[in-house]
């Protein structure tokens, strides 16, 4: 690829087109701008007029420059410029992609995978067969086509271990068997045993190219606990520069949710490869921590699992005999305390006080009798998983404990008295321990010769005895018996806890036995010898990225291997569970050093993150387009067409003037005078009739009374302001929409503040207001949310009967007497001498009827009635009464109870003495 500095060109010959630019300049300069065609009748007058100058406007130089630049951008763009062009794969023949695939490469794995993908694709484009090999998990090298190799790419994940000697040997074997090929080696950047051999094997096979990130690998050494201080160490492979790393301790909080319990920082000074951090944590918190992680490490090496080693067991010691003050060496608990103190928390106190603290172990040394409450508490605690460790002694031997019946808290029945051997008063030699049986938890522990037993309590032979013996003397008598009970166990040492009966408490074996029984957990890792004969089952294992996974059905690991074996497929790092404790196997240990991989000078080493290839073609073509757009605007401007285009743009951009006047107009129209209004029902014919009816009534009012209404208006309940109208006529149709909640709020407000609504079902009230006709059912639905007072049939003495005309009927197009108004108060009484009761002091908020008043009132603009009412003269009379009702109604609306107050006039006059 032809390259100019960091820019390469895919088609460099196209750049020759740049030579044509000066020519283009000249041509563009010579050609005038394109003419505008204009229709113009006055052309007849122009004929014969010649231009004074023969040359036209030249294209200005900057426009020329713009165009030439645009063309240049197109030419360069088409030449395929690429920023930071990458060398393509050269060579032929098969390619091996070799990956260390250790945990150290996990943080950079995505970039490495991307690089591998690119390499595979490039090799595929070159038609080269490919194979992949992971040193951490070598397999037979099989060269395949690139698309097959691509499918294997996701499988090349890092393993949570480093290449070990076995794997290196296997890899070299495979490499030398595969013939000639070129190699791309994805190095993790860490050195390991046998790397040089692999390199030389590869160089024998063909070219080798290394891809390696310069980023330092980080690892966390498992925490150690000593003297109340938790010590963490982090290591890195490159010592350049100071650095801080955060370490986080994860564990379950009291609620059981895993969260970060501790977070601290390692500080690496310049040149330092290891940093140490001392944490002093409360025992509670410390016991909760399940693992430490370097934040952002994302590799198995950055995770250090903790096991029981950070935990200190709580052990409660009780002895049956504490009376020999001062004779500590004879105290039944002295040796136990010595053995346990370094590694466990020892609880003191009364038994019933200690049990609620839930100790891990309760030791009863020579305790024969327990109070029933204590016994019950211990039983409960054992069944919940506690471990009761009992030692025999003179008291036990002398008591009837577990003599005839097996005691609940004893593993075996005991024979009376016990026995003594090899003492001054007895025959025989002191007994020694027999080697531990395979099923015993002590299996694998070496039995020292100097451990002798001179006295012991004897177990009654029982059918269950053989199962319960975990250690015995050379003569076959049980030394340690054990019984499981619920989730816990009861262990009995048939000797005392001090050196009275045996030398066992004086020996190292005693401590080891206690450890095996998980009575203690030593801070130090167990040695291979200590774990001899045990099998550890993986619980959780780490993957290469440091994520914990359930081990599932993975096979168990022999104890010595777990401690000293090399990590590999058979022994992945993780958490292993033994008899009754857990042991963590981590990637890093004290001896693991992170050494950066060094390569011979003649091997090509590339980083993973070489500069990205950036094609510039799109950008250049876009630039050309942008320049041409500018050219369009500029050309338009030059030829005088831009103004019109701009005007069009401005005209389009100008927003229409806001029309805020609508509601004001409505309010002005409604409030300029008295306006009768009707509710718009959505039924066009009905609305028109209502308007015509109110128009007719308005005319009648105008002619006959001093009320001079303006033209009636329709009111939309949803949008219009109601308070402007003293009166609403509301014709009901069967399919009228129910108003919205907001409209109801407005309506109720209207009714409460003195408005009057005349509901007209227009059905002549044929069915009464029991809900017979569709309209009245609709009315019931519409009126249900309205704030309507109790109603009654319009009484004879209602003020509506006399506000203007004296009326007894209220007909519309129909003539029904049933018109409902607000009920009179209960205490309204007819006063002596008065024609009317002293009724409401208010305008009734609603009037409900079905007489189709609007139809009776309706007139056209010439005052001619539009709808027939009745027949002949009687019909006209009915229409007249309908108008009179309308007049009375409006008078009632406008004057309220004025006419009702008139009844008091005689009384007032009387009082005034006239």
């Amino acid at each position: 690829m032809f390259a100019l500095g960091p820019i390469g060109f895919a088609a460099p010959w196209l750049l020759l087109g740049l030579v044509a630019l000066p020519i283009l300049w000249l041509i563009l300069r010579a050609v005038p701008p394109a003419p505008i065609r204009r229709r113009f009748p006055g052309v007849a007058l122009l004929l014969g007029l010649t231009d004074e100058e023969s040359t036209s406007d030249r294209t200005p130089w900057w426009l020329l420059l713009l165009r030439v630049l645009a063309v240049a951008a197109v030419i360069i763009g088409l030449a395929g410029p690429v920023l930071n062009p990458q060398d393509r794969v050269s060579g032929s023949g098969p390619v091996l992609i070799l990956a260390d695939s250790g945990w150290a490469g996990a943080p950079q794995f995505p970039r490495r995978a991307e690089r591998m993908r690119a390499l595979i694709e490039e090799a595929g484009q070159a038609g080269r067969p490919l194979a992949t090999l992971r040193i951490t998990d070598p397999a037979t090298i099989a060269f395949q086509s690139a698309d097959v190799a691509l499918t294997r790419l996701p499988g090349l994940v890092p393993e949570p271990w480093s290449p070990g000697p076995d794997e290196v040997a296997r890899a070299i074997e495979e490499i030398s068997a595969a013939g000639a090929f070129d190699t791309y080696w994805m190095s993790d950047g860490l050195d390991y045993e046998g790397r040089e051999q692999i390199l030389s094997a590869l160089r024998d096979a063909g070219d080798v190219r290394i891809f390696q990130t310069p980023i330092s690998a980080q690892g966390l050494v498992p925490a150690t606990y000593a003297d109340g201080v938790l010590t963490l160490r982090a290591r890195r492979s490159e010592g350049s520069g100071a650095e801080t790393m955060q370490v986080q301790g994860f564990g379950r909080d009291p609620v059981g949710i895993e969260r970060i319990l501790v977070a601290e920082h390692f500080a690496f000074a310049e040149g330092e490869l290891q940093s140490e951090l001392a944490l002093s944590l409360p025992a509670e918190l410390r016991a909760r921590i399940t693992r430490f992680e370097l934040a952002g490490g994302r590799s198995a090496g950055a995770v250090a699992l903790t096991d029981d080693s950070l935990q200190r067991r709580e052990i409660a010691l009780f002895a049956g005999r504490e009376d020999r003050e001062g004779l500590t060496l004879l105290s039944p608990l002295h040796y136990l305390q010595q053995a346990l103190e370094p590694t466990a928390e020892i609880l003191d106190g009364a038994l019933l006080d200690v049990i609620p603290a839930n100790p891990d172990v309760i030791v009863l040394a020579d305790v024969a009798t327990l109070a029933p409450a204590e016994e019950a508490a211990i039983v409960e605690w054992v069944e919940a998983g506690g471990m009761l460790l009992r030692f025999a002694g003179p008291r036990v031997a002398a008591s009837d404990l577990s003599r005839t019946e097996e005691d609940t808290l004893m593993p075996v029945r005991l024979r009376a008295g016990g026995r003594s051997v090899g003492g001054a008063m007895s025959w025989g030699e002191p007994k020694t321990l027999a080697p531990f049986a395979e099923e015993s938890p002590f299996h694998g522990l070496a039995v020292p010769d100097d451990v002798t037993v001179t006295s012991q309590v004897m177990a009654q032979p029982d059918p269950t005895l053989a199962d319960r013996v975990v250690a015995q003397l050379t003569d076959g008598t049980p030394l340690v018996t054990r019984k499981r009970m619920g989730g816990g166990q009861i262990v009995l040492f048939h000797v005392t806890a001090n050196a009275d009966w045996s030398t066992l408490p004086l020996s190292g074996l005693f401590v080891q036995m206690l450890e095996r029984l998980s009575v203690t957990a030593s801070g130090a890792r167990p040695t291979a010898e200590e774990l001899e004969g045990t099998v550890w089952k993986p619980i959780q294992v780490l993957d290469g990225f440091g994520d914990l996974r359930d081990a599932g059905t993975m096979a168990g690991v022999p104890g010595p291997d777990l401690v000293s074996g090399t990590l590999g497929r058979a022994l992945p790092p993780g958490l292993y569970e033994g008899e009754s404790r857990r042991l963590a196997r981590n990637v890093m240990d004290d001896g693991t050093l992170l050494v950066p991989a060094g390569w011979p000078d003649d091997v090509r080493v590339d980083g993973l993150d070489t500069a990205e290839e950036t094609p510039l073609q799109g950008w250049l073509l876009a630039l050309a387009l942008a320049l041409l757009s500018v050219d369009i605007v500029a050309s338009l401007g030059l030829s005088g067409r831009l103004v019109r285009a701009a005007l069009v743009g401005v005209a389009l951009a100008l927003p229409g003037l806001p029309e805020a006047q609508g509601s004001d107009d409505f309010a002005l129209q409604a409030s300029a005078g008295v306006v009768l209004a009707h509710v718009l029902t959505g039924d066009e014919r009905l609305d028109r009739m209502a308007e015509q009816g109110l128009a007719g009534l308005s005319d009648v009012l105008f002619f006959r009374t001093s009320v001079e209404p303006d033209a009636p208006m329709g009111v939309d309940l949803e949008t219009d302001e109601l308070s402007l109208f003293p009166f609403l006529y509301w014709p009901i149709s069967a399919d009228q929409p129910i108003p919205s909640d907001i409209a109801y709020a407005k309506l109720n407000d209207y009714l409460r503040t003195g408005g009057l609504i005349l509901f007209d079902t227009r059905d002549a009230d044929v069915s009464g207001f029991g809900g017979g006709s569709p309209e009245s059912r609709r009315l019931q639905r519409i009126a249900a949310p309205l704030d309507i007072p109790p109603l009654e049939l319009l009484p004879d003495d209602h003020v509506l009967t006399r506000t203007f005309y004296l009326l007894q009927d209220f007909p519309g197009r129909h003539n029904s007497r049933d018109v409902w108004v607000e009920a009179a108060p209960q205490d309204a009484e007819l006063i002596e001498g008065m024609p009317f009761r002293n009724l409401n002091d208010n305008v009734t908020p609603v009037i409900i009827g079905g007489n189709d008043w609007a139809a009776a009132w309706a007139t056209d603009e010439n005052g001619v009635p539009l709808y027939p009412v009745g027949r002949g003269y009687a019909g006209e009379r009915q229409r007249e009464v309908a108008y009179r009702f309308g007049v009375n109604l409006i008078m009632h609306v406008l004057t309220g109870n004025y006419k009702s107050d008139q009844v008091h006039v005689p009384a007032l006059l009387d009082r005034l003495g006239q």
Partner: protein
Amino acid sequence: MSLAADLRARSEDAAAPLPALLAEAEHLAGTVLLGEHGRRRAGLGDDFWQYRPVRSGDEARMIDWRRSARGDDQFVREREWQVAQSVMIWLDQAASMRFASNNNLPEKAARARVLALATSILLVRGGERVGLSGSGLPPRRGEAQILRMADAFTRDEEADYGIPEARGMLPHARALFMSDFMGDFPPVEAALYKAADRGVRGVILQVLDPAEEAFPFSGRTIFESVGGSLRHETLKANELKDRYLGRLAERKDALDRLARTTGWQFGTHHTGDSTQAALLWLWHALAGQA
């Protein structure tokens, strides 16, 4: 609404506010149809002219007894002789009239048609006879004639520039020529002279678009006539402006001179201006030609 009906409606709108146009008649000869224009002599008509003493030969029923009863002599009541004037309209309907420089302005032809028809309506209301020059539509009176004229005004011509039609002119009639007068000048001259020879007098109304007066062009431009028959290319349109405006003024001047020579009246109307003003001017011009 058809084009003709629409045109008529707009013309009615334009004509409505004006009083009936009473074109003064100068000559009686040649036109004998009765109209409402007093000929300032006794004759057939409705309006009172004078009382004259009874002469021999007058029938007894011709005597105005009311007047005669006031004295001893007997009088006959004479009425003014009324005749109608004929107005011949020539409206340029050529392609050059179908031009509007922007969307807010009407085409020149549209404006000219409205004006011409409004004038026709006024004349018909005044009892005049209106027709088109040439043989297409001889002058007649009545509403039906307005319909026919409106119909005639809706026919576009294909030619790029119109040539005035001076054939079929009734002697001593009145004429109204409306055009942009952008085309060849000699035919205009010839037509006017021919009309003037017949004693026809009238009005020339030049209807122009504002752009034709302002020439707001610049840059390299190809000007084409509306019909496409003429074109003129210029490299710097703005430099032509002064010379174009000079030629336009010259053309107006020539028309004015021609009008004065022949006793006609000349006016210019721009489509950007008010129609009403133009109609008023037309009315005055037609009415003022004593």
